[in-house]
Structure formats: structure tokens, C-alpha cells
């Protein structure tokens, strides 16, 4: 097999055993040290042009996973391969060329835009950073990007506070597109928006994916949104992926009890529909001291003695469908 074939066969993004722990406390007269196991060994890969949804409750580590893959955080262990290149141990300077290929859209369209820069400067900054265009060319390219994301080119001179939430998120998308990346990590890009605006942004993202052949790692807690945009979905619980399956398969045939519970929590369109599945009780255990064995056993309706002792591995049950549960 030649090198080019190997590259073509390898996925765009490949994450193996990714771990991100935060050490808190410690220091002189401080609280005793503790380790927050935000991301505790996750594996997945993402192909070119594909969208992988990453869902889970607040605090399950999905955003941390996104930021670690972006190398805004340094991974504790594990590897991240972007187009076959290992970026998990690179320094900030070494990381710079790879950033052109991997961009991010943040959750909060308010805090992710510098209030002291106007919209044109914000969207043009990535090009300026990589010296991709002269000042006058940049203006034209920024105007193009504005139109592409559904903003008026003459609003380039406006400041972020003069835009609505949805328009601000469009600015964030235009900024992410400016470097023509292959992968965009969407960190809950619509959670802060109104439902009506959510749909517009999701449709814009799908439209852009088709035009530019983008791949998305789509982090969200809203299953309906994920179902609409993703080809495959990974469900995270307390720093681990508990189930990974094609979207249709996951929604039709959830295997992990946690996935079942998540699906049961989606509000039904028909209020008279009978609910048979039990909803979860209790809270997510602390990631500082996750439960032994299966991390979900404290809340699982089907837990057995074995679940409290042995940690289940993520194993494939059907084509492309993996689950980490002793009982399935």
C-alpha cells in the first residue's frame, strides 16, 4: 500500500484513549489535591464529510473532549490524529499549522466574540494570522463569507453587541470558515439560541457541509438537534463513551440503559402518548470519584452485582454499533 493510499484510508480525525484530568486544590495551605476525570479514555474516529454527534448531560466531559482535540487543552494521555498526523503532543507553535485544518464554533455567541473588534475584523483575523490575503483581498473574502453565512456584507463595520444572538453565531461560523478547514468542532453551537433560530443555524451548517465537504464533531445535549444533523452519534457519560452507533440505529434501537433513559427524556410531540420507560433518578456522580465498575451502575435500573465490580469495555454488537454494557 502506498503512502497516499494509507492517507486516503485513514480517517480525518482519529482519537484513541483520550484522557484529560484536571488537578484541583493543592498548593500552600490549599485544599487537598483532587483529580477531576473530565475525559477518561475515549475512542472514536471521524471520516471526511461526516458529522459525529457527541451527546451527554452537563458535566460529562463532552466540551472538555472538544477543547482537548482542538489542543486548547493539553491531553493527559491518549492520541489525536488529524489526517494521519499525531497532534496530541505538539507545542503551541508546532500546533499552529494544524489549526488551519481544524476550527471551532463556540456555544456562547456573546462571549466568543471580542466586544472591541468589529465584525469584519473578527472574521478577517484568521486570514490575517496566516497571511492569506492582502488587506484589500481580505475585505472581499470577508464580504464573501458574510454572504455565505447569511449576513449583509455592509454589516462588517458593526460591533458584536449590535447583532442578535443568531447573527452573532453566524459571525462565529464565518470566522471558523475563514481558513477553509476540513474539520469544525461545534461546541453546542445552538444551545444558547432560540428554537426558531436554532433551526436556521443547523440548516446553515448542513448547507455549508455540503458545499465545502466539511466534517463536524457536533457536541450537544439536545438529542433532537443531534438526530437532525449527525450521521453517527456517540453518547458520553462521566468521561466515557457508553454507546456509539449510526443515528437511525441509535434512536431506533438504543442498547445502553443510559441512552434509553436519554431518549425517554425527549419531550414527545403527542402528550397523550404513553411513556413506558422509566426516567433516571439522582444526579451524575462526581467526576472526582467516579463509581467503581460501570460508571452508570448507581443510576441504572438493570444493574447487577457484576456492574459494581467490573468496568464494561466498549464492544461492537452490530455493524458500527458499539456499546459499553455487561448486559447487552
Amino acid at each position, binding site marked *: 500500500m502506498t503512502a497516499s493510499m494509507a492517507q486516503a484510508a485513514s480517517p480525518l480525525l482519529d482519537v484513541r484513549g483520550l484522557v484529560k484530568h484536571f488537578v484541583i486544590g493543592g498548593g500552600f495551605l490549599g485544599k487537598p489535591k483532587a483529580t477531576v476525570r473530565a475525559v477518561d479514555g475515549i475512542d472514536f474516529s471521524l471520516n471526511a464529510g461526516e458529522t459525529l454527534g457527541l451527546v451527554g448531560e452537563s458535566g460529562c466531559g463532552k466540551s472538555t473532549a472538544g477543547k482537548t482535540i482542538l489542543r486548547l487543552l493539553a491531553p493527559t494521555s491518549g492520541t489525536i490524529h488529524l489526517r494521519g498526523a499525531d497532534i496530541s503532543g505538539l507545542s503551541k507553535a508546532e500546533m499552529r499549522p494544524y489549526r488551519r485544518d481544524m*476550527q471551532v464554533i463556540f456555544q456562547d455567541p456573546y462571549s*466568543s466574540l471580542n*466586544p472591541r473588534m468589529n465584525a469584519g475584523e473578527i472574521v478577517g*483575523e484568521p486570514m490575517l494570522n496566516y497571511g492569506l490575503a492582502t488587506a484589500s483581498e481580505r475585505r472581499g473574502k470577508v464580504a464573501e463569507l458574510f454572504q455565505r453565512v447569511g449576513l449583509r456584507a455592509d454589516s462588517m463595520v458593526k460591533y458584536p453587541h449590535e447583532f442578535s444572538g443568531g447573527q452573532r453565531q453566524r459571525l462565529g461560523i464565518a470566522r471558523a470558515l475563514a*481558513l477553509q478547514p476540513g474539520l469544525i468542532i461545534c461546541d453546542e453551537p445552538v444551545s444558547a439560541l432560540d428554537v426558531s433560530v436554532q433551526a436556521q443555524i443547523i440548516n446553515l451548517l448542513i448547507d455549508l457541509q455540503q458545499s465545502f465537504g466539511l466534517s463536524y464533531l457536533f457536541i450537544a445535549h439536545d438529542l433532537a438537534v443531534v438526530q437532525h444533523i449527525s450521521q453517527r452519534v456517540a453518547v458520553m457519560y462521566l468521561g466515557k463513551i457508553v454507546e456509539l452507533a449510526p443515528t437511525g440505529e441509535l434512536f431506533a434501537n438504543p442498547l445502553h440503559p443510559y441512552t434509553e433513559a436519554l431518549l425517554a427524556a425527549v419531550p414527545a410531540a403527542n402528550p397523550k402518548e404513553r411513556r413506558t420507560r422509566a426516567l433516571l433518578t439522582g444526579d451524575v456522580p462526581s467526576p472526582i470519584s467516579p463509581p467503581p465498575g460501570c460508571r452508570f451502575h448507581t443510576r441504572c435500573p438493570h444493574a447487577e452485582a457484576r456492574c459494581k465490580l467490573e468496568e464494561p469495555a466498549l464492544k461492537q454488537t452490530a455493524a458500527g454499533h458499539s456499546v459499553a454494557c455487561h448486559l447487552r
Partner: protein
Amino acid sequence: MTVAALPETTARRRRSPLTEAIRRHPTVTAGLAIMAVLVAMAVLAPYLWTIDPMKLDPRFRLKPPSERNWFGTDHLGRDLYSRVIYGSRVSLQVGLAVAVVATLIGTAIGLVAGFLRWVDALVMRVMDGLMAVPGVLLAIALMALTRASLETVVIAIVIPEVPRVVRLVRSVVLTLREQAFVEAAEAIGTRFHRVLAKHILPNAVAPLIVQATYICASAMILEAILSFLGAGTPPTIPSWGNIMAEGRQYVRVAFWLLGFPGLFLTLTVLAVNLLGDGLRDMLDPRMRRRL
């Protein structure tokens, strides 16, 4: 499509820009007006003197305010009005110099402390140490080490003021670097120096300007205190503190010796504080998010 932002209501009653400014920012306008008069006074001092402020005239010792000596005279017969006018130069120079120098040094140290953990631990302990000693005491100690001149007075006041700026800048940097737009800047490949110049500093300017005005005011008071205690501006230069120090023993027979310089010092500090308060109110809403 999201609806384009509605045009702002332009149906405002027609007013001249000046009245509009006064109505919207009365404190800033008041502060600016007083400051303008004081600055004009300091700059035009050579033209406003009626009698040479250094000239001794034993015939007119401790005279009350009169047509010849508008603010009266001191125990050596020097004209108080001319001396007070001249004194404004010292106060304004010291206030401005200290505000600028302390802000620049403090900003530089604060930026480094906010970004580098190990520097932070070291620098902040030194700053805490400096803040533990009262500013006046520290300034007196520093003055005792050197010969009295206007420059040494400025340095002696800058050193106790620097920690205030450092703390402010450090806390602003610590807040800002956690903001998503700073993370975004890193994600789009912005180099560190540009992150500082375009993302951190512009967002720290508003609180810095306000802090600088307060430093300016407190520097003026500190200068007067130092001079009053004989540890500040050399007695050959008439500063408000010097005039009050010399007049202290005659206050029972010549109230004007304390009254006039005290009044001017109060007015100046008031003006600077009004300016600072007003600027804070003016700059704050822009920092807040509006929808």
C-alpha cells in the same frame, strides 16, 4: 432570516452637542470643567502672577486678603495668591506623572503576572508586601533615602501606587483569558503578542483609565502630605503642601495660609474624582452586553 437591527430612535429633541453632553454625563462635564480651569491656571501661571511668588517683603507679613494681595501674605511677606497659582503646577505635574508612570509599570507587571503562573506567585507576594505598608509611610521612607526633588517625590509616590494597578490588571487578565473569545483567538492561530494587543489590552482599558484617575487624585494628596511633613517637594518650590506646612504655626492669626491652598487641593482632587466616577459610568455600559 433574522430581522435586521431596528434603526435607533432618532427622534431626540434638538440640542447643542454641549448641552447634550452635560445632560448625559454631568459628572464628567463638571470634572472636566474644573480640571480645564486648573490646567489653564497652571499653564498660564507666569501671566497670572501678580507678585513674584518667591519675593520676600517684610513690610507685608501675615496680611489678610486685600486688593494688593488677593489671598493675603505669609510670614515672610510672600504673596499667597501667586504662590497658590504656582503650586497648582506641582500638584498637577505630580498627579499626572504618577498616574501615567504607575499605570504603565503596573500594566506591564500585571500582564506578565496574569499570564505566567510562576511569576504570578512571586510578584503578587512582593506586591502584597508593598501594600501592607501604608503608602505615606513607604513614601516617607523612600524620600529619606534620597535628596528632595520633584522627580524623587514622583518616584516615592509611584512605588506604593504600582501594586494597585498590578492587582487590577492581573485580575482583568485572569478574567479575560478564560473568555471564549480569547480561546477562539488561539484556535484561529492568533500569535500571543497579538492576543495581548488586540484581545486583552483593549478590554482592560476602561477599568485602567478609571484607576488612573483615582491614582492621580491620591498622588496629589500624598504629595501634599509629604510636603506638609517636610519630606516632599523642596521648600524652595511653593507647592500646596509646602505652603500649608509653613502656614501651620500661624493659622490662628492667618487662616488664609491653610484655607486657600487647602481649598484648591480639595477642588483639584474633587475634579479628578468626578472625572474618574463619570468615566467609570460612561465606559461601563459599553462593557455590558446589550441585546
